[in-house]
């Protein structure tokens, strides 16, 4: 009988983590930023139809980086989870905390059990009735869940972008300021700034909106709202 090769669990986990990190590093980053009137999610995305940012429920949005088919499946599963819970209990019973935990459990189980880990990192964010009730959860490829405040970053260039935001973020930003800050932070992710700016995907959770709080800015809307501001900043 052939004896299977012994590989230490340490080694297996390390290999899996490295594999997942490599996959995620290929994609551009996404930032989530709290501003006075809500929460903003921004991604560089040349495609207008393959979204990285999406609505999950009344106050909850989702963003994913990495392998599209994998975070798309997670996104749909999240919507099913939320709609099913809201339908069988009530709309107030759909909480971001439990959704983020379910994501964490699912992604973590796949990481330990399956031969191939998910090459994804996701953000699950909620706009609260007051700014202090906002919630942001970051779930990484191995299911590790972290609670964030003020801003959150996922994707390959996360470290550089996070450093930029730590230096420049302040509370009570206006929407225009938050858009400009997010744009600049994404640019800070590059070692060398790109010659041509890529199209932006922007999703907002607006506290003042009636009913479902999610609003997707069109690419033109986003470009129009951001361009003059970034230019101003360059002049300063």
């Amino acid at each position, binding site marked *: 009988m052939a004896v299977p090769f012994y590989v230490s669990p340490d080694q297996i986990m390390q290999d899996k983590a490295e594999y997942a990190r490599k996959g995620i590093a290929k994609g551009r980053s996404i930032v989530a930023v709290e501003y006075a009137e809500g929460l903003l999610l921004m991604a560089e995305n040349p495609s207008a139809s393959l979204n990285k940012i999406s609505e999950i429920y009344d106050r909850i949005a989702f963003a994913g980086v990495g392998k599209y088919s994998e975070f798309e499946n*997670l996104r749909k599963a999240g919507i*099913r989870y939320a*709609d099913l819970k809201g339908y069988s209990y009530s709309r107030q019973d759909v909480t971001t905390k439990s959704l983020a935990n*379910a994501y964490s*459990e699912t992604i973590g189980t796949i990481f330990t059990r399956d031969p191939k880990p998910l090459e994804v990192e996701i953000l699950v964010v909620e706009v609260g009735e007051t700014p202090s009730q906002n919630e942001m959860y970051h779930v990484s490829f191995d299911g590790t869940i972290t609670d964030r405040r003020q801003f959150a970053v996922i994707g390959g260039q996360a470290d550089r972008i996070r450093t930029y935001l730590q230096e420049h973020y302040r509370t009570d930003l206006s929407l225009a300021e938050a858009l400009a800050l997010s744009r600049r932070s994404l640019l800070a992710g590059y070692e060398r700034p790109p010659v041509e700016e890529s199209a932006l995907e922007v999703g907002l959770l607006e506290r003042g909106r009636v009913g479902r709080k999610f609003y997707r800015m069109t690419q033109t809307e986003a470009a129009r709202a951001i361009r003059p501001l970034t230019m101003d900043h360059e002049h300063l």
Partner: protein
Amino acid sequence: MPLFAGSYDGASFFELLRHDFPHLLPFQQLHNVPQFATGECRLMETVPLATTVLALRFADGVVIAGDRQATEGFEVSSRRIEKVYKADDYSVIAMAGAAGPCLEMIKLFQVEMEHYHKIEGETLALDGKANKLAQMVKQNLPAAFQGLIVIPIFAGYDLRLQQGRIFKYDVTGGRYEELQFYATGSGGKEARSTLKKFFKAAMSREAALALALEALVDAADVDVGTSGPDLIRGIYPVVKTVTCHGVTDVSEDEIRPLSERLIAALQG
């Protein structure tokens, strides 16, 4: 997966429930209950019934309205029930029949619209919505045989055709488009007579609102199951409009004076 236990992988919430969670569907599985098989128990007399609802087209879209009474046999079961709901940004739904299943089906239909929008990133065409509702009504047929009838009116603004549209249904899930108006429920016939007599193409919003209320008052005048505007308790019909700007609730401040005028005319 703790996230989602089912195996359905499409964009319809209704199909998701059918596939993985049938116990959450609004349809009653009555064939297992022996009392119904023998006809000993007649549900119609023991559950609240929601009565008259109507819809009519006007220049900018559709007006939809419903009275506020639910009836249980010879008793008033509720004076404040609502039978007209926003389905999504550009459509509304109203129901007549057994109140419980009606309200549950409306809720399911609302979630269906929202779920599809979130999963697919686009909204269904108005025809698509009307068809989906037909499939839900069809699922209720076994319960309808036992008296738990659910009859919706569905209306919306078709952004492609740029006009308001009204759909009526029968218990088998048959779906028919009405070009002018429709009314259903216990006072439906009476309301239809009024609508038929005074309906004009491309009416103003004000004229359409007045006609909708008049039809409800006439229905309440003849049908004991339908309530007119209740001036004493301050309960008025629920009225909504759908236009290219979306669904709007008509405020009580606008309905109250119209209702008072109609009641005054009855005193004549």
